[in-house]
């Protein structure tokens, strides 16, 4: 009894998240008009507390190995929480609007529920927990996507998301059923010895990868991405593109590395193909996009392809690089979406790239932040994206995936091209409006957005330079 209780208490990251979730839910239900004012700041503060309290890394396996916590997964969770906090901060403006403020509570609760699911997914030691975590991360996400329920794009995006997520989890489950059928267990600890690579297991692996491919929106499973990203509220798109993708990538890496070690030849090949396909196709598609959210959707598909390089490496170095990449990707992408969201709020809901023409003249700081973030995404030094790309390339290269790395590198040029298109629109192009003025007037953004942007900029500039982040990750990944 006592040992059980202490075991449950050692899920402190998850428990504290549940606590915040409950507080938010109850506050939403019973706090009345008070909540309009204090809801946003207090949830942000609670979230910050949650991150601060759960920084202590520990190693523990609970429930007979169904749940495994390592310093590495702890740090991954912290990164995910921090990303969520950033999203919360920047969503203040959107949630303060008249037509959305009454949905604040739902937004927090659903977001935290998905985050909780991701925690379990990352810490899973059994496919059941993995699957539950995955679904917990997907189902509320569909509600989030459809949160703007009177904008029919949002509902439509939600429908597309939930259907594709169900489809993918069906594929994944079908794969898992064969893994179970051929091995008789679903414990990560017991599986590696059983998975020798028989035909059925290879089939299962393919299905598993396809399912995860949907979640991570890899080519050729990416068809839902652009629509959903465009239709969802911008803050949700941001969340979807960074946190959920990052968690899925980490979980995929953990599963492939620790559950399928004997089938490495099979999955590395598949992952390499997925990676190259994602990067290439998404880059080519991104070039054609005029809407910023669709554009970021394809950009995020290609980023997922880069993240896969870390999975491909399948080593401790790969894992560390992957998580570092995700962390950097989180700050950069959140910054981009914070800007998109702000511009959207102040330019009458426009998300097209044309709205950004001449933005520099009216909002130089916003422009600068967006530029830095895009540079970071494109892998330009001295911003963090350069380091994360380098590390992930190095990790894949170390395992001999020269050609894949080379193709990915060539693709960075294409990606740079389309990131520069945005930069060009902001700095160089003339506004298309009738009066020749930029679509966005000089604006003073919401304090939450400003804080987000400041934090993200700091992250973009410092994450690469401050080497202890990556070194810590590498050390902990090595200990797994």
């Amino acid at each position, binding site marked *: *009894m006592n040992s059980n209780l202490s075991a449950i208490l050692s899920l402190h990251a998850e428990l504290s998240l549940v606590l915040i979730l*409950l507080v938010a839910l109850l506050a939403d*239900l019973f706090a009345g008009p008070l909540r309009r004012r204090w809801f946003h700041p207090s949830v942000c503060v609670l979230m910050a507390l949650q991150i601060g309290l759960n920084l202590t890394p520990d190693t523990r396996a609970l429930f007979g190995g169904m749940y495994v916590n390592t310093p590495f997964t702890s740090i991954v969770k912290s990164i995910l929480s921090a990303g969520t906090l950033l999203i919360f901060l920047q969503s203040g403006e959107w949630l303060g609007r008249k037509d959305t403020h009454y949905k604040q509570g739902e937004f927090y609760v659903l977001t935290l529920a998905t985050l909780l699911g991701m925690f379990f997914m990352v810490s899973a030691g059994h496919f059941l927990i993995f699957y539950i975590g995955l679904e917990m991360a997907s189902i509320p996400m569909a509600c989030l996507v459809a949160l703007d329920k009177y904008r029919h794009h949002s509902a439509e995006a939600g429908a597309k998301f939930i259907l594709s997520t169900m489809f993918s989890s069906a594929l994944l489950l079908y794969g898992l059923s064969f893994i179970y059928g051929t091995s008789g267990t679903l414990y990560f600890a017991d599986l590696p010895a059983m998975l020798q690579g028989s035909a059925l297991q290879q089939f299962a692996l393919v299905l598993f990868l396809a399912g995860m491919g949907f979640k991570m929106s890899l080519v050729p499973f990416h068809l839902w991405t652009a629509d959903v990203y465009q239709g969802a509220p911008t803050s949700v798109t941001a969340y979807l593109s960074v946190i959920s993708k990052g968690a899925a990538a980490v979980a995929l890496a953990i599963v492939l590395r620790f559950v399928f070690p004997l089938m490495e030849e099979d999955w590395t090949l598949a992952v390499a193909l997925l990676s190259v396909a994602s990067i290439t196709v998404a880059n080519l598609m991104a070039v054609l996009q005029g809407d910023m959210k669709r554009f970021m959707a394809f950009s995020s598909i290609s980023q997922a392809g880069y993240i896969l390089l870390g999975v491909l490496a399948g080593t401790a170095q790969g894992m560390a690089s992957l998580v570092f990449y995700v962390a950097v990707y989180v700050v950069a992408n959140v910054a981009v979406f914070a800007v998109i969201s702000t511009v959207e709020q102040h330019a009458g809901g426009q998300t097209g790239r044309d709205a950004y023409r001449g933005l520099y003249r009216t909002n130089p700081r916003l422009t600068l932040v967006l530029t830095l973030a895009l540079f970071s995404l494109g892998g330009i030094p001295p911003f963090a994206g350069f380091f994360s790309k380098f590390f992930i390339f190095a990790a894949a290269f170390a395992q001999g995936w020269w050609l894949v790395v080379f193709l990915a590198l060539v693709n960075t040029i294409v990606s740079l091209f389309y990131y520069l298109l945005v930069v060009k629109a902001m700095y160089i192009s003339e506004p298309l409006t009738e009066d020749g003025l930029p679509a966005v007037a000089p604006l003073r953004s919401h304090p939450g957005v400003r804080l987000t942007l400041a934090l993200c900029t700091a992250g973009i500039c410092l994450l690469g330079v401050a080497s202890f982040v990556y070194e810590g990750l590498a050390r902990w990944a090595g200990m797994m």
Partner: protein
Amino acid sequence: MTDFTLLTVVVLTAIALVTAALLIARLAAPRTFNPQKGEPYECGVPTRGEAWFQFHAGYYLYAILFLIFDIETVFLFPWAAVVGRIGMQGLLSIVFFIVVLILGLAYAWRKGALEWK
């Protein structure tokens, strides 16, 4: 006899009951043709329009709520059968589960999903 055989017998019985009764009726009942008979009944006045319309969304709402609360049974029944034996731990975990369920109910209630509109 195994459960399966029994179940088959029962199912076949049910089908036989309906089929046999219908057969008897078919044989015994008169059959006349009248175009008015084939129309849906609307108190004698000519039928207007289709009945296959989309109906009140409130019904869906209850369907969804039902779905959520009905699934709890899947988890609760196996647990209920053994709760006397697993004791405190079973109690705690299920209390947590039910609290979440009740929260869900409270949420639906508070947000007005239970009002018939």
